[in-house]
């Protein structure tokens, strides 16, 4: 269901929209943080936050309120809130818009988040390339400090909160939460074994909550509306997937971009109503629903949910394009919602070349710590290279399954699954196209991924 909202994006595009006066005037800025800090206990904040049904916006979809509730005060150690803005999942371009255009929502979210989990410091981990984002965040922090919203006594409350922007140095893996913590501590960004989970021993060995940047930015809105009311904005509130979120669309659409809508939007609405339809009025061919790690869907795929108890049963036999974009709904159709930014491919796109492009990405970004991922991602790319060159045998094509399946579940972090799942997804959905390369019916020498010349 298409329901556009503008809680997070109202100030987008306004003159000086990223500055404090605009945020206070247009979005009732910092009123919510003031009310929360001065009238609620931290336990009440966590209990209320659970009602918002904010599913983590970074890709895994873990409920934010429940994550907050894992935090227990430690007798000697401080607690930390770490905000993940290492946006780098191919196809994902939403967090950047928030940092550049509405940084105060993030700072206000950090104040409420810190108070809820008992932390006095929030670190926002921004990838280094996003220089404008970092400048806007620091600008917002400075403005909030000058007003006394951040610092030793925010809104007069005796509860110090400080927000710090920290930068990475170019590594996709640092978006994985424990890798991010290692990077924050000044180490190589290699993921850590879990347990201990960050809530027990995270940043600097202290209890830590890691939230995606968009998750934190949604917090002021949720508390402003009342968390239950916020959740009910969603068309799939009954599936514990609430509120509003940013939907991105990119690739072969007429109007790529980021749009704020109530949860429950469908891919069809995202591609045709918001994205303006397919570039050059071509037919839709395939969609990667939420970042390159989420398995690809074909345009003609239909939902298979004959079981009446399945939450997807009412869409049984219908197109996957008409299923609301939700964490559990998309898991039910064999893919994932991920970061909710869809990459659209028009007819004429060669899926083998798309596969090759992504396998190159994963080979480049594997941190190298776990053998199955380090060797497996390179092996997948080697087969992709041979396919495109026209030297891949049928045996080697079949090896793709073995290699991918031997990565799955055998690595410290989810990067392994993030590599294997899209590999297996492409192979399953485009077996014919892959075989055509093996049989020499197609080759990638002159093939291009674009559907038309770049003007």
């Amino acid at each position, binding site marked *: 269901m298409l329901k556009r909202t503008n809680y997070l994006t109202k100030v987008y595009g306004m003159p000086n929209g990223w500055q404090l006066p605009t945020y206070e005037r247009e979005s009732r800025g910092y009123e919510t943080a003031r009310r929360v800090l001065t009238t609620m206990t931290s336990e009440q904040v966590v209990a209320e936050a659970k009602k918002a049904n904010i599913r983590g916006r970074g890709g895994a979809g873990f409920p934010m309120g429940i994550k907050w509730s894992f935090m227990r005060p430690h007798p000697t150690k401080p607690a930390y809130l770490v905000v993940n803005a290492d946006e780098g999942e191919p196809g994902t371009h939403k967090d950047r818009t928030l940092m550049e255009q509405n940084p105060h929502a993030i700072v206000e979210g950090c104040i409420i988040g810190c108070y809820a989990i008992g932390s006095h410091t929030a670190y926002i981990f921004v990838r280094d390339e996003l220089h404008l984002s970092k400048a806007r965040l620091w600008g917002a922090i400075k403005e909030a400090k000058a007003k006394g919203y951040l610092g030793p006594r925010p809104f007069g409350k005796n509860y110090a909160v400080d927000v710090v922007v920290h930068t*990475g140095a170019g590594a996709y893996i640092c978006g994985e939460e424990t890798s991010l913590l290692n990077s924050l501590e000044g180490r190589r960004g290699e993921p850590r074994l879990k347990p201990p989970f960050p809530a027990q021993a995270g940043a600097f060995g202290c209890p830590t909550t890691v939230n995606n940047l968009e998750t934190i930015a949604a917090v002021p809105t949720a508390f402003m509306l009342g968390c239950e009311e916020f959740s009910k904005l969603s068309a799939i509130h009954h599936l514990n997937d609430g509120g509003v979120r940013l939907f991105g669309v*990119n*690739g072969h659409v007429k109007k790529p971009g980021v749009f704020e809508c109530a949860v429950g939007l469908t891919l069809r609405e995202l591609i045709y109503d918001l994205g303006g339809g397919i570039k050059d009025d071509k037919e839709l061919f395939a969609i990667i629903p939420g970042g390159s790690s989420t398995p690809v869907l074909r345009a003609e795929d239909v939902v298979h949910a004959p079981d009446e108890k399945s939450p997807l049963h009412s869409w049984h036999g219908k197109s996957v394009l008409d299923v609301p974009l939700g964490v559990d709904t998309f898991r039910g159709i064999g893919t994932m919602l991920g970061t909710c930014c869809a990459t659209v491919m028009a007819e004429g796109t060669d899926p083998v070349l798309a596969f090759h492009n992504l396998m190159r990405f994963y080979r480049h970004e594997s941190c190298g710590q776990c053998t199955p991922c380090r060797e497996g991602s390179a092996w997948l790319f080697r087969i992709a290279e041979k396919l495109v060159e026209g030297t891949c045998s049928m045996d080697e094509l079949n090896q793709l399954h073995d290699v991918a399946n031997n990565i799955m579940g055998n690595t410290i972090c989810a990067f392994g699954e993030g590599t294997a799942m899209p590999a297996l997804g492409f192979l399953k959905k485009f077996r014919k196209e892959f075989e055509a390369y093996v049989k020499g019916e197609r080759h990638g020498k002159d093939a291009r991924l*674009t559907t038309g010349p770049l003007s």
Partner: protein
Amino acid sequence: MPFALNPERDRELDEILTRYPTKMAACIPALHLCQDQNGWISDEVIAWVSGRLDLPPAHVKGVVTFYTLFNQEPVGKHQVWVCRTLPCALRGAGDVLGHCQKRLGIKEGETTADGKITLRTAECLASCGTAPMMQVDKEYHENLTLEEVDKILDKLRQG
């Protein structure tokens, strides 16, 4: 020649150190400051950072070699990064990269003979909605056309 941060950047590092409970946490920010000054991370830079932050040189070297943004050898005055991951590739990143190579007369990873421009490829820079794009030093250029690429490269060559 031994390396040291200039006084202005060194004061900035002092301020950065106040943000964290450990000195080690300032390792990546310190390396960024050094690279801004020196252009790349030489063994001398590693030695300096290790002394300044009380870290073993091997730790600093390990960090430098992990992250792609730390240059382990000298680079051109300007760095051009063309994003080539799928969403950009679908919108013509291949043409942008090919065009840059032709105009500059170098391949990706190489530096022009006058030392002005290093051409590189990048994996996803979070600009999928404004593809194709490239990063020039610290600035993003989005929704590129080949004419705009020409303008950008001409400016860099003159500057």
